[in-house]
């Protein structure tokens, strides 16, 4: 039963990720006084792409053609670890939050290799930038996660969320810092403004797009889907760790239904906030990204210190 719900949850993650991307696009267009594409447009794009024959560069090796499957599977595994609408699932025990970060690293490793495979300047540029930014983002991310892990004294996401739920509404300064750090990291890692702009192919600023420039057909669909999934995972992490209320603690149909509605509402609100910030903020120069990410790291560190100094009962 638990295993079934875990599987359903992962599938829901995969199924709902394009919806979140669509909703984000709708919000952004409205805010910018543009006519929005339909909410379901990302699904249509994915379906269209999977029905096209992929065109692959002549010198591509197996890394290039297999990388999309690896990236998608790794991201899907990361999704299976994160509680979406119910806690206490068997999948969160088989891998904790550090392993989840590891899955992202796995996907990124192959994405960067795929970028280098064709031997174009764009691919190398994207890989180099992606690896730089992620290597700065990872410590900031783990710092925020460690704050949570030390508070709940676990790295198991499901148990940590239960812990936060049981504590009730307590305003912890450490959590506030960690929340902001995680938001900054999430924006950087999912390639949103101000770090990267997913909507353009402007060569000087590309990061993610530069790596996947050579992809087409089902390969492109998988990579796009994986990046939508990644956005959703970060959204769910933020929503469920810091505002876990509404998540199902038992497996009755009612609780699960409420859990699903709650997470959908939380994600919708988060997407509006993200759209708002993307509309208000301009993209950053590449070499200011390290300042942004070291600020995120600093926030994570402050969270950790305030946990140790203020909250640890000694």
């Amino acid at each position, binding site marked *: 039963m638990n295993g079934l719900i875990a599987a359903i949850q992962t599938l829901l993650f995969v199924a709902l990720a394009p919806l979140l991307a669509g909703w984000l696009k709708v919000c952004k267009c409205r805010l910018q006084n543009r006519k929005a594409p339909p909410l379901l447009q990302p699904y249509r794009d994915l379906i269209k792409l999977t029905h096209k024959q992929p*065109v692959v560069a002549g010198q591509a090796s197996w890394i290039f053609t297999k990388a999309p499957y690896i990236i998608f599977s790794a991201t899907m595994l990361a999704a299976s670890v994160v509680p979406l609408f119910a806690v206490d699932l068997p999948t969160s025990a088989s891998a904790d939050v550090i*392993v989840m970060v590891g899955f992202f690293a*796995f996907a990124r490793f192959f994405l960067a290799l795929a970028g*280098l495979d064709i031997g174009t300047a764009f691919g190398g540029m994207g890989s*180099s930038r992606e690896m730089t930014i992620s290597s700065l983002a990872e410590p900031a991310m783990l*710092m925020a996660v460690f704050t949570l892990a030390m508070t709940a004294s676990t790295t198991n996401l499901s148990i940590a969320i239960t812990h936060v739920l049981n504590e009730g509404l307590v305003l912890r300064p450490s959590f506030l810092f960690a929340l902001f750090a995680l938001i900054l990291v999430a924006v950087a890692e999912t390639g949103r403004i101000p770090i990267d702009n997913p909507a353009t192919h402007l060569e000087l600023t590309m990061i993610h797009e530069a790596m996947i420039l050579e992809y087409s057909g089902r390969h492109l669909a998988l990579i796009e889907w994986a990046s939508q999934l990644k956005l959703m995972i970060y959204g769910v992490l933020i929503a469920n760790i810091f505002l876990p209320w509404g998540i199902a603690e038992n497996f009755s149909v009612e609780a699960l239904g409420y859990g699903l509605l709650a997470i959908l509402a939380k994600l919708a609100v988060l997407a509006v906030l993200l759209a708002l910030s993307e509309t208000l903020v301009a993209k950053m120069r*590449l070499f200011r990204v390290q300042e942004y990410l070291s600020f995120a790291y600093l926030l994570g560190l402050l969270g950790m210190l305030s946990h140790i100094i203020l909250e640890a009962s000694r």
Partner: protein
Amino acid sequence: MILLLAYCAVLLSFVSGLLALLMNQRHALLALCQTCFKKFPGSRNQCRAFVFGNLDEQRFPVFLRQAVFVILGLSGLFAVLAGLSVLVSKDVITDQIGLGLPWLPWHVRFDGLSGFFFLIIGIAVGAVSLYGPGYVSGYQESRHPFAVLGLFTGLFVAGMLLVLLADDAFMFMIAWELMSVASYFLVAFQHENAANRRAAFLYLLMAEVGALAIILGFGVLASFADGFTFDALRESHLSATWASIAFGLALLGFGMKAGIVPVHVWLPEAHPVAPSHISALMSGVMLKVALYGLIRFSFDLLADIQWQWGVVLLILGTVSALGGILYAMVQANLKRLLAYSSVENIGIIFMVLGLAMIFMDNGHPQLAALGFLAALFHAFNHALFKNLLFLGAGILHHQTHELNIDMMGGLIKKMPQTSLLFLIGCMSISSLPLFNGFVSEWLAFQTALQADVLDNGVLRSLIPVAAAALALTAALAAACFVKVFGLIFLGQSRSQHSEKAREVADKTMLAGPMLLAALCFLIGIFPGLVINLINSVSEQLLGQTMPNDSALGWLWLAPVSAQQASYSPALVLIGALIAGCVSFWYLRRDPVLKTMRRAAPWDCGFGGLTPRMQYSSNAFSMPIRRIFAKVWLIDERIDKDMQGAMDQDVAAVHYHIDIQDHSWPLLYQPIGHGINTLAKQVGRIQTGNIRTYLGYSFVTLVLMLWVIS
């Protein structure tokens, strides 16, 4: 019985070294065999044919090389067997050999800790001996005699094994010196280049300074004990200050060998110039012997661990880990890059060992056992994947005659098997899930996250920062090895050598790396296999084992408790396979769509991508170089050749970059200057005048008489 296996391993490695000396003695052997066969005319013809066939001028060198490496491989096999059996039986075996000084025979002790490092050495030596014959066949006998290489390889391995067996300071130092000096000759093997001689001398110098520090460390212990045996040294009860002094000396000595920052400078010099299978042994195994020395010295001999030592190790380890990977990032020479990456990994091991010490002294032996486990596990993993990568680098060098990664490219199509093995090495070292590097790093994170139990607030906040530094290290390592794999194997060929490269013809050369790659994956999926072995080490040494939550079963890893953290690589692998296969099958179900159309890549409409348009090693690491600019001493120049009227047109642009280590101007050059000035001062009293020297003798004599009376 177990000790016999260990002795066999040592003896066989000696024999392999001595056998190599026969390389130049073919005629003597021939004569010997002929006299033998004359004396025993009844011997069978087959036997005779075998002997003379192999003594044939053409056949003999090949046969002898194989024989030497077979015996070396047997030595590795015996080392593995000895290590495994002592770990499984949990025995402590002691013995005495009538060698050495009259009143101090060699004491031998074979326990879990020695056994675990025997296992590491055995696996590495086994892999190297599979790989060796193919690799050394490329050397010209007249310029690079195999006798020298084989002899010192054998002595080097024997020295390392003897260090692990030693149970008195005297034998330990003899074995240690055997290991150091033998490896000096191996580094200096290709001595026709001045750079190689310089690297070898630097290595010898630092090895000997380190050995002096170790001797002094033993001396401090021995002055509180009656005798030089480890049993006596264990009984010496030192005051906290003296214990710290002894620890400091040992840390300097063993740290110099292990290559922690700032005494790491010999590593990036010596590893690139040694033959690849030797660099693999030095980096994968010899550094671990230094680690063994430090563990033996602090956890076993000193025993009363102080948490301040842990803090020192933690800080040194963090600096080494970050410094190592940042320096590795900017190297273009593959073996130099791997050497710096060894500095990084040793740093990680020291960090976790420091955590273990901190927990030990603060009264949390269980957590100390967890840290100890993570440290030893990472040492084991590093031996596997660094060996694999160095052997891979050797294959690349053998096939392309290049070590500069900017001169390679596109090799994945030409060397598919090598590339797959190298990829596994890169993934393990970048600590990606499903591979062994991730497990030890995960355990390291779990250890660091237990910092909450400490009473000291500074420590509690220091340790998470160190953990974040570890995260940065891991992420940078991934970036570094994406660069390595991407530039060597992907893209288009950057030079003619790599254009013409082929997969190695001698498949036994691939067998060694294959063994290591299989172990990397296997241990990544079933880490419990190694953890059980390490647990018996920590049971003997710390009296504690890692608390693995057994309720979850052996496929799971749950240090501390299942509530706190758990990881099951096997289940993750199953999940990954399901997800991968389903998406692969579903998307390729249509036979028409299954085929891919090949086309030229997007070239912005300018036509024709050339290999020069690809990202180079310097280009790839440029953002990181710019962000962490203060870490290196960078000398970057762009020269333009001008031509045309008024020299206005740019004909060519030359880019130079020179990256130096900070430790040279900050540490080594002042020491060098200091020694020179001191020597000059001493030179001043040496006038060369006999009357002055007689005067010195007289004054000394009078002083001595005064002291005595």
